[in-house]
C-alpha cells in the first residue's frame, strides 16, 4: 500500500484530519460504460489531485504503518434484478415515488404471507456457483428479529445457519498500476434475504431525534422493502484498501456478467460493509474489529479503509490501542474520514428461528447442473483467455471490466479481425468516444461486425487508417456499414501509381516556384507538396505510395 498511496497526515489533538492523496491519476486505463454504472475500484478519476505531502508526519506515519497489518473482510449486499420482489408480486424500480410499489405482503400487513419468487433461488445458485461455493441442496429461511421503523414486520426474512452457498472464493487481478498480481479471496457464505424499506430525510445517516419523529408521521418508504438481496460474506483475506476495493469491483463484474443485478453502488444495488482490524505484523490474534458503512463507491471504500488503517495504527503507536472499540463507523465523503455511528453494546441477539411461513428450499442435482451448464464465461475465465491470446494485463483488465465491452471485443475478433488491432480500436477511439458522449458500448450504432470490416478494409489497403478513423466516428454516431460509407463518400484509397503520378505531376506543374525552392535545397517543402496532393485526392492517396512517387519526381532532374 505504501507503494501506491501517500498520505498527508496531520495530528491535531489526537484527531486525524486526513488528506489522502493518490499518487496517480487513475482515469487513464479504465473507462466506464455509463457514468451511473461505471464506478470500478481504481478506475474513477480521483477528484483529489496529487499533492505529495512533504510534512514530516507523513514520513513518520509510513514508518508507523509499516509495522502493522490490516485484516479486512467485506459483507456485500447485492440487490437482485428480478422483475418482482422476493416474496410478493410488486415490481421494484429505483427512484419511484415513495410507497407506490407496495402491497399487503411487503408492507407486512396483518394476515399477509410471503411466497418465494423462485428467480431468487436461481440467481443465488448462479452466484454461488460463480463464486466456486458448495451449494446447500437443502436450506431454509429464518427470521432475523429486530425493531426498526424501516422493517415493517419486525423481522427480516433471511438465512441463518444453512446459507444457500458456502465456502468459495473470488479471483481478482489487481490493476497493473497498483503493482498488479493475482489474488484469491475466500468467500465464507452467500445467503438470500429481503431488503428493508428506507427512511426518508435521513440523508447523512444521522439518526437524530428529529428524524425519529419524522418516522412517526409516516416518512418510511417501503418500495424497497422485500426486494431480494444476496449477502456475500468474504473471509478476512484482504490486507489493503485496494485489495478490498478490487474484491468488491470483481463482485460487481460477476453479478453483471451473470445478469443477476445491475450492481449499481449509487442506487444501492451493491452495498459493501467493511470489517477491519489491524495487528502488529507477526501477531496471530486479530485486533478489535471496526465496521465501516456508507461506502458509495469503490474509491471511497479504498480511501475509507486506508484512513481507518492510519487511524488505528496511530492509536496503536501512541499506546492508545484501547481506544479502538467495536463499533460501526460511517465514512464521511465530504470530510474524508470515518466517524463513530454507533458503539456495539454486547452482541445483538437477533433471536433467529426457522421462518414458519415458508417451506424449506430444496434443490435437485439436475437443477443445479442445468444452471451450471448455462453459466456464461465469467470474468476470470475471460481474463485468462485474453491473456493467452497475447494481450497485456492492462488490455485484458480493460476489456473484461465491462461485460458488454468484452462481448463486443469477442464479436469483433470473431469476424476474423486481428486481436491487437481490435483491442487498440476499442481501447482507443471507441473508448474515448464513449467517455466523451457518456455512452455505453451498447448505446452506439457501431456493430462489432462493422468494426471488423473497418479493420479488414484498412488492412487490405482499401482505405487509409486516417479515413478509417473518420468512418469510425460516423459509424458510432449514425450507424451504417463500412462498405456503404466508403461508396457513398467515395473514399476508396488511390493505390494506382499512375494515377498518383498524374496528380503529383499536376501539383508540381502548378507550383513552379516552390519546386524551384525545393530543388534549391529547401527540402522541407516536401510536406507542402504531399499536402497539396492529399488535397487534390481528398485524402485518398495511399500515403506510402504518394511519398515514394513524390520524392522520385522532386529529385529527378528532368
Amino acid at each position, binding site marked *: 500500500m505504501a507503494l501506491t498511496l501517500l498520505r498527508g497526515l496531520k495530528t491535531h489533538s489526537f484527531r486525524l484530519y486526513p488528506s489522502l492523496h493518490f499518487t496517480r491519476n487513475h482515469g487513464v486505463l479504465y473507462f466506464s460504460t455509463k457514468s451511473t454504472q461505471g464506478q470500478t475500484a481504481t478506475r474513477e478519476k480521483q477528484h483529489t489531485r496529487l499533492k505529495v505531502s512533504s510534512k514530516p508526519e507523513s514520513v513518520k506515519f509510513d514508518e508507523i504503518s509499516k509495522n502493522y497489518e490490516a485484516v479486512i473482510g467485506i459483507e456485500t449486499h447485492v440487490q437482485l434484478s428480478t422483475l418482482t420482489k422476493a416474496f410478493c408480486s410488486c415490481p421494484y424500480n429505483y427512484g419511484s415515488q415513495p410507497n407506490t410499489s407496495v402491497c*399487503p405482503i411487503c408492507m407486512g400487513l*396483518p394476515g399477509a*404471507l410471503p411466497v418465494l419468487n423462485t428467480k431468487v433461488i436461481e440467481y443465488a445458485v448462479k452466484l454461488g456457483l460463480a463464486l466456486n461455493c458448495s451449494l446447500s441442496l437443502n436450506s431454509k429461511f429464518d427470521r432475523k428479529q429486530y425493531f426498526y*421503523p424501516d422493517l415493517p414486520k419486525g423481522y427480516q426474512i433471511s438465512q441463518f445457519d444453512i446459507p444457500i452457498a458456502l465456502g468459495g472464493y473470488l479471483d481478482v487481478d489487481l490493476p497493473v498500476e497498483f503493482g498488479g498480481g493475482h489474488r484469491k479471496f475466500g468467500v465464507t457464505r452467500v445467503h438470500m434475504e429481503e431488503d428493508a424499506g428506507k427512511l426518508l430525510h435521513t440523508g447523512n445517516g444521522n439518526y437524530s*431525534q428529529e428524524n425519529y419523529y419524522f418516522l412517526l408521521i409516516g416518512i418510511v418508504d417501503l418500495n424497497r422493502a422485500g426486494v431480494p438481496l444476496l449477502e456475500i460474506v468474504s473471509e478476512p483475506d484482504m490486507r489493503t484498501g485496494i485489495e478490498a476495493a478490487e474484491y468488491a469491483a470483481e463482485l460487481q463484474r460477476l453479478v453483471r456478467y451473470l445478469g443477476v443485478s445491475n450492481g449499481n453502488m449509487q442506487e444501492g444495488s451493491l452495498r459493501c460493509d467493511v470489517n477491519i482490524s489491524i495487528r502488529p505484523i507477526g501477531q496471530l490474534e486479530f485486533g478489535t474489529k471496526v465496521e465501516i458503512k456508507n461506502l458509495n463507491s469503490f474509491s471511497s471504500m479504498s480511501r475509507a479503509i486506508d484512513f481507518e488503517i492510519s487511524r488505528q495504527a496511530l492509536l496503536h503507536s501512541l499506546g492508545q490501542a484501547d481506544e479502538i472499540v467495536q463499533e460501526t463507523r460511517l465514512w464521511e465523503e465530504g470530510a474524508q474520514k470515518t466517524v463513530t455511528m454507533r458503539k456495539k453494546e454486547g*452482541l445483538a*441477539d437477533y433471536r433467529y*428461528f426457522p421462518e414458519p411461513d415458508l417451506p424449506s428450499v430444496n434443490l435437485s442435482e439436475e437443477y443445479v447442473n442445468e444452471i451450471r451448464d448455462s453459466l456464461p464465461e465469467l470474468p476470470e475465465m475471460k481474463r485468462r483467455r485474453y491473456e493467452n491470446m497475447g494481450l497485456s494485463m492492462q488490455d485484458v483488465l480493460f476489456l473484461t471490466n465491462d461485460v458488454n465491452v468484452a462481448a463486443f471485443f469477442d464479436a469483433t475478433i470473431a469476424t476474423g479481425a486481428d486481436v491487437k488491432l481490435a483491442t487498440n480500436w476499442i481501447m482507443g477511439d471507441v473508448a474515448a468516444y464513449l467517455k466523451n458522449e457518456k455512452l455505453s458500448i451498447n448505446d452506439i450504432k457501431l456493430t462489432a461486425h462493422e468494426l471488423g470490416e473497418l479493420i479488414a478494409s484498412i488492412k487490405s489497403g482499401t482505405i487509409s487508417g486516417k479515413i478509417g478513423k473518420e468512418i469510425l466516428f460516423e459509424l458510432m454516431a449514425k450507424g451504417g456499414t463500412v462498405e456503404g460509407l466508403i461508396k457513398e463518400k467515395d473514399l476508396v484509397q488511390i493505390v494506382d501509381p499512375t494515377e498518383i503520378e498524374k496528380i503529383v505531376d499536376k501539383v508540381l506543374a502548378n507550383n513552379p516556384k516552390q519546386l524551384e525552392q525545393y530543388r534549391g535545397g529547401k527540402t522541407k517543402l516536401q510536406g507542402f507538396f504531399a499536402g497539396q496532393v492529399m488535397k487534390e485526392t481528398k485524402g485518398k492517396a495511399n500515403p506510402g505510395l504518394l511519398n515514394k512517387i513524390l520524392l522520385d519526381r522532386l529529385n529527378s532532374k528532368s
Partner: protein
Amino acid sequence: MLSSAQTTPRLLRSPTTTAAAAALKCSSQIITTRKSLISRQTSAVDLAKSFLHRLRRTEPQLNSFLYVPPDEAVLKQAEDLDKKIKNNEELGPLAGVLVGIKDNICTYDMPSTAGSKLLENYRPPYDATAVRKLRACGAIVVGKTNLDEFGMGSTTEASAYQVTANPWDLSRVPGGSSGGSAAAVSARQCMVSLGSDTGGSVRQPASFCGVVGLKPTYGRVSRYGLVSYASSLDVIGCFGSSVADAGILLNSISGHDKNDATSSSREVPDYASQFLEIDDLESKPLKGLRVGVIRETLEDGVDLEVISSVRDAVSHLEELGCLVTEVSLPSFSLGLPAYYILASSESSSNLSRYDGVRYGNQVFGDELNSLYGDSRAQGFGSEVKMRILMGTYALSAGYYDAYYKRAQQVRTIIRNSFKEALDKNDILISPAAPSVAYKIGEKKNDPLAMYAGDIMTVNVNLAGLPALVLPCGFVEGGSKGLPVGIQMIGAAFDEEKLLKIGHIFEQTLQGCSFVPPIVADEWTP
C-alpha cells in the same frame, strides 16, 4: 334439577324408521337453505331478516360479535340473491348462507381487530382467501366475532373489547379463542362461522357451546388473511350446527392458494358427497372402521362426567359397527409444554409488527426504543404480553436449544406417535376438553389451569392433523345442562373419513337437541 335433555342420548336403533329419517334429514342448515330458496319456499331476504332479528335480540346478552354491519348492507346482498333466484341464475353452493367470521380473519369491508386494541378500527385492504372463497360461493357475512386477543386464550375473556357469554349458561365462558364464532352458531345468530385453531381454538369452544367444530389438516385451508398467531400451527376452521354444515363450509374454503406457501396443493375431495341421508344407512353403517380411544385422555384431570359421556359415545360408535380399541400415546402429556413454547416463540415474532409505528396508539418517548416499548405495553393485553415474553425468552441466545429446539424435537416425537397410532386406526378418539364450560372469571387468574385445559387439543396442532369435535351429550349445569364434545382425530388430509363418521354418529344420536335455551323457543330446525 335434571331436565329431559340431560338424559344420556340413546342410539337410534332402527335407522330405517321413516319418521326419524324425516326429522333428521334437515339437520344441515346449508342444505335446507338451498332447498327452500330454490323451491321459493322462502326468500334470502326473509331468511336474513330472521337471523338478523335473532342476532339483535340475543347479542346484548351474548356479545358474540365485535362488529355487525348495518342491516341494509346484509339485506342488500340478500336482495341481489333473490333477484338471481328470480332470474333462475345459477347459485353458488353457499347462496344465502349467513356466516360469522372470527375477527382475526381479514375482511376488506369490515374492521379486523383480532380482538386487540392495537388494531382498533383497523380495516384491511383485502379479504382473506377463505373469506373471498366464501363470498364467491354466495355466502353473506353477517359480522365479525369476538375472540381472545390474537387468538391467545381459551375463554374469549382475553378480548380487549368484551366478554362473550355461553348461550347455554350466560354465566359461563363460551371457550376460546374462537368463542364468538362458536356462541354465534350455537345461538343461531348465523348459520355457520369461521374460526381459527392454533391449539384448540375451534374445537374447545365448539365443545363448550354444543356445536360442531372442524379443525382441518394444516395446509388444507389457506392462512392468507388470517392474522398470524403461530404460523406453523394456525389453521382456519369451521363451525356449524351439524357435521354436514361444517363439511360443506370446509369444501368451499379448502385448496391450494398461491398466496400461502404452506397451503397444500393436494386435490380437495368433495366433502359434501359424504352427507348421506339417514334412510340410506345400513344397520351397521361404520362396519369395520377401527377406532382407537386414546387412553391418556380419559385419565386423571378429566371430569368424570366428561369421561362417561365420551365412553357412551364410544359405545355408540361400537354399535354402529366400529372396532374400538384403546391406544396409548405416551408422548401425549409432552404436548402441552411443547405447544406453549412453540406457539409463544412464533407469536413473539409474528406480533413484532405491531410496533407503534404503523398500528395502534403511538406513545412518544425520548427515543425509538421507548416508542416501541411504551406503545406495545399500552396496546397489548396481559395474556399477549405474557406469551410474547415467554416466546422471546425461549428464542434468546443461550436458551434456544433448551426450549425452542427441544420443543421442536418433542413435536417430531408427537407427530410420529400419532402417525403410528393412525396407521393402525382409522380415527382416534378423545374428549374435546377435560371439562365442560366453566364460569366466567373462574380461571382468569390461573393461567396454568387454563393452559392445562388445552391438553386434549394441542397435540393435534403439533401433529398438523385434522380433527372434528361434535356434541355427544350433556352434563349437569345451567338450566338445560351443558354440552360435552367428543374429538375425532384423523390422518392428515383425511377429513373425508372424519366427516363421514361424524355425520353418521350425529344422525343416529337420539334424544339430544343441541339448541341452547336462549333460542330454544323460537328455533325450529
